């Protein structure tokens, strides 16, 4: 028996299923892997192992009552991921998920500056950069209840609410 289920607010109820397809999640991972790359030599976990893309997928599956921008983001991701893939194929002859680190850095830097030539005119590049960066940071550092920051990996790596842990080196 579970007590108080009727009172659990919408934001605390995990969606049964994420919004993004596995292919879209792979694309988000490819972008996020350059926004917050892992650096295990310096004990910094990356966005991919934190599961920041699952965070986005679960957030997009939630109701607008949880947060009003969610429906806008659904539209944005559904439009932006194919547009970025088109851009990658046109400029690097490779799918978005197959870009090298330097190529992906140049795409993200171009969005930040609003300077990607030939990118879909329907999408505000700077807004897309801001949204991707924001979601990447949220997916890494928010409470794990939202689907990212798996096993509190970022909190443990950075030392938040607890001393930083040695995550990648054997304890000598």
């Amino acid at each position, binding site marked *: 028996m579970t007590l108080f289920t009727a009172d659990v607010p919408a*934001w605390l109820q995990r969606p049964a299923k994420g919004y993004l397809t596995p292919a879209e999640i792979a694309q988000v991972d490819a972008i996020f892997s*350059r926004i*917050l790359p892992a650096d295990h030599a310096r004990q910094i976990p990356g966005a991919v192992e934190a599961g920041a893309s699952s965070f986005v997928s679960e957030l997009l599956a939630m109701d607008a009552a949880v947060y009003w921008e969610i429906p806008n983001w659904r539209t944005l991701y559904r439009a932006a991921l194919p547009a970025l893939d088109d851009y990658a194929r046109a400029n690097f002859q490779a799918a978005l998920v197959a870009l090298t680190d330097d190529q992906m850095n140049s795409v993200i830097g171009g969005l930040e500056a609003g300077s990607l030539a030939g990118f879909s005119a329907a999408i505000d590049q700077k807004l897309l950069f801001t949204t991707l*960066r924001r979601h990447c*940071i949220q997916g*890494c550092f*928010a*409470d794990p*209840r939202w689907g990212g920051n798996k096993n509190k990996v970022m909190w443990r790596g950075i030392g938040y*609410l607890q001393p930083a842990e040695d995550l990648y080196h054997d304890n000598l």
Partner: protein
Amino acid sequence: MTTYDAIIVGSGAGGGTAARVLTKRGMRVLVFEKGPMRRPDEFLPYDELHFGEHMPLTPNKNTDPLIYIDPTGKRKAVERWWIGNMVGGATMLWEANLPRYTAEDFALLDVMKEAPAGTSVVNWPWTYDQFQPWFEMAEWEWGISGQTPPPGTEHMQEPVRSGYQFPMPPLRPHASTPFLLWAFARAGMKPFPSPRGINTRTYNGRPACPYCGYCQSFGCAVNDRASSTNTVLALALQSGLCTLKTGHCVTRILHSKGRVEGVAFKSDPAGAEQTVKAKHVFVSIQAIESTRMFLISGIPDPNKLVGRYFTYHTKGSAELTFKSQPVWDDGPQRLFQPRTSLGSLQMRDLYVIRDKKRPELTKGGKFSIYDPFTISPLIKCVSRTGGATKPKDLWGKQLVDRLVELRNQGGVMFSFTGETMSTYDNRVELDDQVKDPWGLPVARVVYKHHDYDMQISKYCLERVCQIMTDSGGEVRKLEPQGAANEGYGHNHGSLRAGADPGKSVLDTNCQSHTVHGLYVLDSAFMPTAGASNPTLTQIANAYRVCHSI
């Protein structure tokens, strides 16, 4: 039918205090609050994404915005993160940083000698000494923890009556405090622990702060942080003389022939307007909103002063990191509290600037000194920090470099609250396009910081950054005040109080010059902005006014 001696619009800092004082004096009061009553457990679980990023407790900018007109004339809908739509208002979400305004704030013209071109600098019609008993009453009823100035340092923090003590000792210091005190002492400056409306031991039936790390913009589920709801309003309700109407929005102040008659209100945005009468009406819904209420209600304004001389505070921030300092931890026997911003120091040594190289700068401001890593939970910290070679919006290697610094090295962040020039053109007016959910025109703010504001912000930030770099600090972020200001929690001055009805909207008892019985108890009364967090002074003023009705 119940009749009321007074109607109070808003249940926050001013409204709750008014309810307390008036019921103590035997008056029957009716308090209107637009939002719901929220219990402390509704703020659990503490969650930064929900409460800090998605901000469900403040108005949504799509449906209930502020319209901002920037210095270039561009129009923008702004999120009013400084409004708390619930019983207790913004005191439910604040950091309860509660310093007093001091003689330098009450008599700005004495400090500045002359007003910079295009500004209106006036002395307040009251003195710090006159406010002192009301400050003390506010500090004891709201429950302030803090440290009064040790002998010989009275000029370095807010002075108090000889022998006076706050009801509680200060919060546990932050682990950075010994280092910062040492570094500032080398420059002849003396930061001190901030007075806070946060319990450090059981006081008035509420427990001591457990240093949970979730403070500003979060509700306090422990109830150790003072709010109108858990202090003054609770006392008013216990008196049996206070009726609190939640979910009720006052739509107009009713007045006739220079006398207030009551208010019109709705209990449902789609419902019909109803009215209730009283001889006294007290409005306390923050300066922008009370000005909007004056304009909507057609309060006579023969000199075109309603909404004018509006001020936000001059801000500015800086972040530094110290290669020589290991990341702040809680020390032996958990001597320090490293996980929250609460143990912040305040620094008033640049409150008045006397620098021979910059004689044009006189009144400065105050710093709150935090650790950037723990001032707020991680998303905010990481989102807004700067890097060694990039000032903001870090990503990629620069973000990783900064995360390593935040984890390994001690840091410091300065938040400046500075004096702000009052100008006639900075104003609150009614917007002619957007309406709020209750069908009322929203407020529109036209605002541009004076050059003086920007100069003192830059000067004071550069001074503290120099002191920190002299002690091994490296700047990671430096953001002085620009000309634009989209909005801020410290909003004041738009219904200036003064003795001369030709130059002010309210009289010296914060009663409308043109509508007898109508009082304003938020910070709209402040003739100049002052240079500290304004709410304690606003609360003290509410005690003062309500004791003389």
